[in-house]
């Protein structure tokens, strides 16, 4: 089986941001994304509050260059004011054309 290397971007953010984040990810050309509900705490601990549904965890598997573009976009628009963190990791996929 032929495996292709890809990058996974994992973003955790307050759930009010979901639709904006998804729109920005699509604009940045992600081939797909997966969202799971989440909650948590971080350094900032600043969230819209218990009442509005916690966090979301977004995961998207894509080429490394697009991943870096997304990090730049996040740093530009989200990291400074919103409760939002992100990290990159490595993955291998079959069907590289799908990601």
């Amino acid at each position, binding site marked *: 089986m032929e495996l292709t290397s890809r990058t996974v971007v994992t973003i955790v953010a*307050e759930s*009010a*941001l979901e639709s*904006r984040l998804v729109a920005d990810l699509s604009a940045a050309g992600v081939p797909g994304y997966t969202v799971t509900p989440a909650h948590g705490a971080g350094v900032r601990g*600043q*969230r*819209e*509050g*218990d*009442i*509005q*549904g*916690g966090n979301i965890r977004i995961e998207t598997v894509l080429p490394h260059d697009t991943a870096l573009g997304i990090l730049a976009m996040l740093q530009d628009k989200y990291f400074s*004011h*919103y409760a939002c963190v992100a990290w990159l990791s490595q993955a291998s996929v079959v069907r590289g054309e799908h990601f």
Partner: protein
Amino acid sequence: METTSVVELAIANLLSPPVLAFALGLLAVAVKSDLRLPEPVYQAISIYLLLGIGIKGGVALRDSSLQEIWLPIAVTLLLGVLIPLGAYVISWWFTRLDAINRGALAAHYGSTSLVTFTAALVFIESSGQFAEGYLVTLLAILEVPGIIVGLLLASRARKGGIAWGESLQEVLSGKSIVLLVGGLAIGVASGSAGFASIEPFFGGLFTGVLTLFLLELGIVAGRRLPDVKRTGWGLVAFGTLFPLLAGFAGVAGGLFAGLSVGGAALLGVLSASSSYIAAPTAVRLALPEASPGIYLTASLGITFPFNLIAGIPLYYWYAETLGGLIGWN
């Protein structure tokens, strides 16, 4: 009810199951209980309350003439502009916060709280008083302008301003507005015959469901209480004194517009209450620099319990006294 004193009113309110359930929620946090109403059920109940109150308001609205309601609507719009302006200015006296955080507060206090209104409705009904059915229309009308004024005030201090298109879209298509306005339309269209078939669900259960909902809101408010200490007494003073003022403005405006004592009391409640569904979302997205630790704490941790426990009977007392003075009722 006219002969009962304000203290008796306040006690009747305090001993009602919804308010006691709220207190139980506060207590559950105090004893570190892990009790929570699951999030999806919380969401479903808020849909139920919004739609149900909208439909009931619509059924009542059907019997109102335009002539009867244009003045209350005009007064409500005026309150929707004046109250956030007042909150912006007065919060400065108490808290010395920057313009963005005061704009955020203005958006919350300019808008209104469904649950406080609902609890007040239950209070009015259970004490056998009358209130105009179209008050729900005023609730829907008061939801939005305060948020816009608040964001406007904050945007002047914000470089980059505000993405107005996005923000307005989010507020106007948010579930509060869609369900209240949609419910009103359903009520108007289906009338009391149509309502009869759904009355056991949207009518009979209402106070019971509200009791469950307030249990959860007590928990949510209780979790905010540590923040209250952190934000300081200025915010506590603002969060209790400003509603007293805004409530008075609402009651006076209501009586001026020709509302009954019960109706004016409810407009007072609408004016005095601060939003924690529509406004927080709008503010969070449009004014990310504003601290939720301030506006949510004030709205949910201070003003909401204050109104629920003391404010509702007080605004009713305003209305009764003022109504008596001007020879009403």
